[in-house]
C-alpha cells in the first residue's frame, strides 16, 4: 500500500464526507482526491514523478494539503520545510534535498525571493498566482491547475519501500537533518497506532500543530486512513480559541505536546467547558509532569488520555501508554506499539536487564530509511543491526514498560521542539561581542525545558540582552532563542579545552550567574 492509496480509498468510501475544515474553507474526500489528482497530472507533465522531490514550504492551509496528496499521487517525494526556520536554514534544506519544484505560500515565497532567490527551484507552485512572480522561475497556481487539468491520472509506479516523505529535524551539529521515510515506514506506524487507538470514520480531530512536523503529518495520514474529518483550529496560537474550536467542531480527538496541555490548563476555561464528544487526547513530544497529568484528567473527565513516545526517525511512534495505565504507571511512556521492538542497551550495544539504565534503541518497519545527508551510519544513529539509536536514556520495568530518564545527547526539548545546543551556540558565537557561549536546558513548567545561554563577552564589550536576542532572531525562530541569557566570566572546560557540558547546569547554579534577561 502507498500513502496516496489512503486518500483514494477514503474518497471511494466517503466521497461527500468532509475531509478537512479550515476557518474559511472545507473540502470533501471526493474533491480532495480529484484536486490532488489534478496536481499529480500537472507534476507528471512537468516531468516530476517517482524519484523526484517537491518541497513544501507552506503554513497549514487547504492548498498545502491538496498539494501534499498531489505530490504523493504523482509518485514524487514530499520534502517538508519548516516555515519558521530562517531563510538561511531554508536555503540549506533546499540545497541539500534538491527539489525539482517548490510549493510555497506567498509570504514564504516573498521571504525567499528577497533574501536568496537563487535557492528557489525552477518550478514554483502557489495556491493562487502570486502578485509578483520571480524571474527565471515557472509559476503554477492551484487555482489554474484545478481549472485546466484532467482528474484521471495513473497510479504512481513506486514501491512501498520507496521514499515518500522527507522531514527536517534538528541535528546534533546544528544543521537540520533530512529524515527519509518510506511509504512502508509510515503506513506500518499509522496501522500500529490505530490498532491501539481504535479510530473509525466517526472520529475527528482538531489540529493545532504545523503539518511540516511529523506530529502533524501523522494526524493527516491517520485521518485519511480512517476517513475521519480534520478541523484546523482558527487560532492555534490563542489558547482559549483552541477550547472554543473543540466546542465548535465537536471533535472526538486532540493531540498536542506538553506545552499545549500546559497552556490549555493554565490559560483557558478548559476545566469548566463541556466537551461531550471528545473521546481521546494524546500527549506526544515529551513528558507532562504527573501533577499536570492529574489536572488534565480532572479537566477532561471520561476522556481517554494516551501518552506516546516517538521521534521523527521512527516514523514516529515507538511506544504507547494506554489510558487505563496513565496514573498507575506514572512516568512511563508505555510499551512498544505493535511491530516495533525496543531495547535498552549498554555503550557496546548489548541489551541490558530490566531496571538498568541505557540508551533506547528501536527496530522495526518504522525505522527510517536514512538521512538525506547519508550519514546515518557514520553518525551511529543506525547501527550494524539496523537499529535506531534514539539518543534517549531509559529503562524498562519487569513488565516491559519503558521509562525515559534522560538523554545521551545534549538535546533540549522546548515546547515540543528538538533543539541541539550547538545550533544556538553557533549563532551566539557569531555576535561580535561574544567570545564564547554555552547553551543548555533547564526544567520549565510550561515549555518542558527552557533554553538557557551562558555567554562570555570580549573585554570591553558593551551589549544589551535585547541586542543579543535580536541577533539570535536573525537566524532562529523564537522557540529556539534562549529564554534566559546569562553573563559569565568563563565556562567550565574539559582537560582538552572543550566546554564541559556535564558541568554546565551545576556551574550555572553554583556561581549564580548574573541574568541579563528573562523572556
Amino acid at each position, binding site marked *: 500500500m502507498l500513502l496516496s492509496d489512503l486518500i483514494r480509498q477514503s474518497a471511494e468510501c466517503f466521497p461527500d464526507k468532509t475531509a478537512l475544515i479550515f476557518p474559511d474553507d472545507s473540502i470533501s474526500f471526493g474533491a480532495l482526491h480529484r484536486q490532488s489528482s489534478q496536481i499529480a497530472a500537472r507534476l507528471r507533465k512537468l516531468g516530476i514523478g517517482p524519484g523526484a522531490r517537491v518541497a513544501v514550504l507552506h503554513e497549514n492551509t487547504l492548498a498545502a494539503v491538496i498539494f501534499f496528496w498531489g505530490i504523493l499521487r504523482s509518485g514524487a517525494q514530499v520534502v517538508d520545510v519548516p516555515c519558521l526556520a530562517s531563510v538561511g536554514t531554508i536555503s540549506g534544506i533546499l540545497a541539500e534535498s534538491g527539489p525539482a519544484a517548490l510549493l510555497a505560500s506567498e509570504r514564504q515565497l516573498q521571504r525567499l525571493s528577497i533574501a536568496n532567490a537563487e535557492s528557489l527551484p525552477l518550478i514554483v507552485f502557489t495556491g493562487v498566482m502570486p502578485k509578483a512572480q520571480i524571474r527565471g522561475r515557472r509559476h503554477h497556481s492551484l487555482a489554474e491547475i484545478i481549472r485546466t487539468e484532467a482528474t484521471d491520472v495513473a497510479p504512481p509506479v513506486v514501491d512501498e519501500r520507496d521514499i515518500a516523505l522527507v522531514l527536517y529535524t534538528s541535528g546534533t551539529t546544528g544543521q537540520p537533518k533530512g529524515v527519509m521515510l518510506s511509504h512502508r515506514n509510515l503506513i506500518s506506524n499509522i496501522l500500529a497506532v490505530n490498532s491501539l487507538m481504535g479510530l473509525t470514520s466517526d472520529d475527528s480531530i482538531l489540529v493545532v500543530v504545523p503539518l511540516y512536523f511529523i506530529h502533524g503529518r501523522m494526524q493527516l495520514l491517520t485521518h485519511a486512513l480512517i476517513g475521519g474529518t480534520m478541523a484546523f483550529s482558527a487560532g492555534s496560537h490563542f489558547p482559549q480559541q483552541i477550547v472554543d474550536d473543540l466546542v465548535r467542531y465537536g471533535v472526538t480527538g486532540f493531540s498536542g505536546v506538553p506545552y499545549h496541555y500546559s497552556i490549555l490548563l493554565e490559560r*483557558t476555561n478548559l476545566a469548566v467547558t463541556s466537551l461531550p464528544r471528545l473521546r481521546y487526547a494524546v500527549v506526544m513530544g515529551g513528558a507532562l509532569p504527573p501533577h499536570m497529568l492529574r489536572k488534565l484528567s480532572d479537566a477532561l473527565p471520561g476522556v481517554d488520555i494516551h501518552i506516546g513516545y516517538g521521534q521523527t526517525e521512527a516514523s514516529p511512534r515507538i511506544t504507547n501508554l494506554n489510558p487505563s495505565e496513565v496514573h498507575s504507571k506514572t512516568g512511563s511512556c508505555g510499551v512498544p506499539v505493535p511491530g516495533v521492538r525496543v531495547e535498552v542497551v549498554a555503550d557496546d550495544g548489548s541489551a541490558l536487564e530490566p531496571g538498568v539504565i541505557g540508551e533506547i534503541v528501536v527496530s522495526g518497519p518504522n525505522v527510517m530509511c536514512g538521512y538525506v545527508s547519508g550519514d546515518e551510519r557514520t553518525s551511529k544513529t543506525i547501527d550494524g543491526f539496523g537499529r535506531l539509536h534514539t539518543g534517549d536514556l531509559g529503562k524498562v520495568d519487569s513488565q516491559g514498560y519503558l521509562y525515559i530518564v534522560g538523554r545521551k545527547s545534549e538535546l533540549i526539548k522546548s515546547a515540543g521542539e528538538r533543539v541541539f545546543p550547538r545550533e544556538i551556540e553557533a549563532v551566539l558565537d557569531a555576535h561580535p561581542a561574544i567570545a564564547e557561549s554555552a547553551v543548555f536546558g533547564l526544567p520549565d513548567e510550561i515549555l518542558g525545558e527552557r533554553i538557557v545561554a551562558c555567554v562570555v563577552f570580549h573585554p570591553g564589550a558593551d551589549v544589551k540582552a535585547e541586542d543579543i536576542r535580536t541577533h539570535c532572531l536573525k537566524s532562529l525562530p*523564537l522557540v529556539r532563542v534562549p529564554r534566559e541569557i546569562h553573563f559569565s566570566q568563563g565556562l567550565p572546560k574539559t582537560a582538552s579545552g572543550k566546554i564541559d557540558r556535564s558541568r554546565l547546569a551545576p556551574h550555572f547554579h553554583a556561581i549564580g550567574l548574573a541574568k541579563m534577561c528573562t523572556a
Partner: protein
Amino acid sequence: MNIANTIIDHIRTQLTFETGSIGLDCNLAQDGRLDSTAMLELILWVEDTFQIPIQNEDLTPENFATPRHVVEFVQRHKMAGLQHATAANVASE
C-alpha cells in the same frame, strides 16, 4: 514612541526577525510570523509593559491577531482604567 510603534518594534526585534516590514494589519499568526510560544510571549509582554491584567477569555484573535488589534486592546483597557480611576476620584470627593 506611541503605543503602535512600541508594539511593532517589540515584535520586530524581540519576537521575530523580519526582512520585510511589519504593518499594523499583518496577521501575526496566520502569516507564520509568530509561533504559538512567541504569541504567548507577546501576550505576557503586553500584560507587563502596559500593566493590563489579561484574562484567559482575552486571549483571542480579536485582541491579538494583528498589531492593530493589540493596539486597540491596549487602548480599550487604558481607557477603562482611566474611567475607573475618575469614577473612584469622584466617589471619594
